[in-house]
């Protein structure tokens, strides 16, 4: 029976060797990077101005003023998440009815429709609206907040509400869509609410995840995508009811059309998540994801069926009540 092995002039007993090899394997396994958060490629500060797509709605483009400057905002990246900004809306008279705003002293370069799917989270909504209006006005972009509320008892269908929101934003000619969760708020001013050439994942550094990105394919939370691209991929799937899966499906749709995604540098991506009870998970999201590729052309904007119950123009947002 073989009992010892000779390696480099030293004899090892088989059991000793086995134990050492096992230890080494365990050690190597414990530091394998695939089980941990991942680093990601990001646009450097010099590339950001070129990557941003300067497109505005007609009413803004007719203004005869000097263009606004955004370099300093990104450069400074001021920390904003303080009680001063998050508690109440400062100077509410600046905001136009329907939650629209554009800077008065210069011509905005970017127009963005902020689409927020919503159901039964009043406290979060209140905090979100007051903070976001304070925040976005300092960014000097032209924006309007569309709140799409699901007005039925079916499981929450986030993706479908985004589709509906994009249709309504298109009515207002917005060239850029920001698909935004109501429980996420940017910490620093540098996370510019404008579209880049490629769809952009904006909340890559979430405080719930220690400001790290769990995996590179994560494309949910806050996403900036051009209206035109959103139409090219036929929007999002309408079939994801309940929590989870729809953001991965969006990522797969983009990949199938060879559209890459991009991100800003980590310190520009920092978001905080408001605490809430977790939504009911979608049990068959994995099955839906697997068969997703077959439905890219049939399931989405072109198969969207809904009834608009009501559209209210509030002082801080445009409220759209829909039945899915």
């Amino acid at each position, binding site marked *: 029976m073989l*009992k010892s092995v000779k390696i480099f002039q030293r004899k090892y*007993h088989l*059991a000793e060797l086995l134990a050492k090899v096992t230890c080494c394997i365990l*050690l190597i396994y*414990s*530091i394998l*990077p695939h*089980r*941990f*958060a991942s*680093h990601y490629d990001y646009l450097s500060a010099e590339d950001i101005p070129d990557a941003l797509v300067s497109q505005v709605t007609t009413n803004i483009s007719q203004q005869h003023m000097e263009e606004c400057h955004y370099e300093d905002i990104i450069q400074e990246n001021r920390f904003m998440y303080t009680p001063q900004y998050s508690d109440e809306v400062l100077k509410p008279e600046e905001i136009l009815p329907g939650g629209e705003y554009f800077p008065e002293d210069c011509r905005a370069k970017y127009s963005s429709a902020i689409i927020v799917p919503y159901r039964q989270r009043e406290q979060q909504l209140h905090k979100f609206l007051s903070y976001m209006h304070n925040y976005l006005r300092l960014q000097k972009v032209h924006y309007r907040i569309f709140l799409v509320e699901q007005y039925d008892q079916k499981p929450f269908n986030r993706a479908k509400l985004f589709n509906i929101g994009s249709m309504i934003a298109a009515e207002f000619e917005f060239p850029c869509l920001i698909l935004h969760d109501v429980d996420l708020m940017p*910490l620093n001013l540098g996370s510019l609410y404008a579209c880049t050439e490629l769809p952009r994942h904006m909340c890559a*550094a979430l*405080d*719930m*995840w*220690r*400001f*790290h990105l*769990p*995996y590179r394919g994560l494309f949910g939370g806050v996403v900036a995508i051009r209206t035109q691209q959103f139409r090219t991929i036929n929007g999002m799937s309408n079939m994801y009811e309940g929590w989870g899966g729809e953001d991965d499906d969006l990522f797969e749709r983009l990949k199938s059309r060879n559209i890459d995604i991009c991100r800003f540098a*980590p*310190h520009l991506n*920092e978001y905080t998540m408001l*605490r809430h009870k977790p939504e009911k998970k979608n049990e068959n999201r994995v099955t839906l994801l697997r068969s997703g590729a077959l439905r890219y052309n049939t399931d989405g904007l072109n198969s969207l069926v809904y009834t608009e119950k009501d559209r209210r123009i509030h002082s801080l947002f445009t409220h759209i009540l829909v039945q899915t």
Partner: protein
Amino acid sequence: MQNTQNNTIKCVKSLSVELQNICKLTNFGIAVAQKAGEEESQIDSSLCCCEYIDRDKQRFHILGCCCNCVDLDTAFTDCITCNKVDASNKRNMLLTFQDRLRLPWRGGAKRISMEAIIPGAVYPLVLGLAALNEVTSYIMLGSIIVFLGYAHQYIKRNNVKTRFFYMWLWWSVVYMVAGLQFAVPLLELLPEENCILVLMGCASVYFMWQTKKHAAACHDIPSRSTDDDLADITEATAAEEEEEAAAHTALLIDNDSPIRSQKNRANSHQTNMCHVCRKYVSARTIHCHVCNACIMMQSHHSYWLDCCVGQYNLRYYNAGMVFSICTLFFGVYLTLTAICHPQLIGRIWNIPLMMPDDCSEVFDEYTLGTSYVLSLYAIIMIVYQLISLILQVIKCTRGPMFFIFGDMSQPFSKFYKKLST
């Protein structure tokens, strides 16, 4: 000085003899046979991995554990016939049970001591219960502190030799590593952070292992060959014996070890004489009643490592302490910021620094609860280690610097020896 050098050479020699022994033992399964004595050598000496020499010096196979227990049989018969079970019967049964609880091992099955098993079973049980909710976590962790603290004090006072704390430490390390691997949401940690944690953990385990390895080198084995020494000893014995007997009776009256150790220390300073071993020892040597040996420059006996900390392993011990505190602290930081809601408190070189500000939701999921309880346990360990390290530093400010660095000449001389050979 000459004396110490002699001693160290002897130490090294005895170590090498021991090593040779171990090699012999491990090579071809004759370990147990040799230990058991001459008569066993007549039995065919090669044991398979499942065989061992039992209490009655007979060859036994692991799978035979359920058969052939005379004491169990008699006890059972007594039970059935409603007779009183004999006390010696009970004891023998227990001994047989302990003897037969074995693990297959090359060179003969090894006996598993209860001291090793109990912590391995109790630790996950207690922390598993603690992870249920907030109340149980406080109760369980509190009782762990009370139990371990009481047991440690009791054992220290009575100088019991036990591997319980050593095994407890090992099991807690094992379970903490397992907890980190399976309970903590690793997707929130960066690979670099994990690498730092693993490196520091390896360093602390390495230093603790070195502490244990070098513990034997601190045992003072003085020369008895010279006539003067012998004369002194023979002279001393009569008087010493009386004194020791008196000390013993005093001890029986109250088991207060500090007084004794002080007395011992005072005596050894005066005469460099160990009263227990009845021999001359080098300066600053203290007799350890647990190791039952004279330890050169003894700092203390560590139950957690089950060895004495003295001249040659003190620096490893201190390095191990510092590294393990760092590892535990970093591990707790990573775990708590991952499972709780973190708050940004600042940045160093663009790396966000966080503080856990709200841990109210950790008991919603059992895995998160487990990692939370493990990190609370780690915090207790950090506090304990910090206190003992601070005590060590206070000790060194009163005494010579060697309490931190140990004997500095040793590593370099060893290094040169290695180079030259």
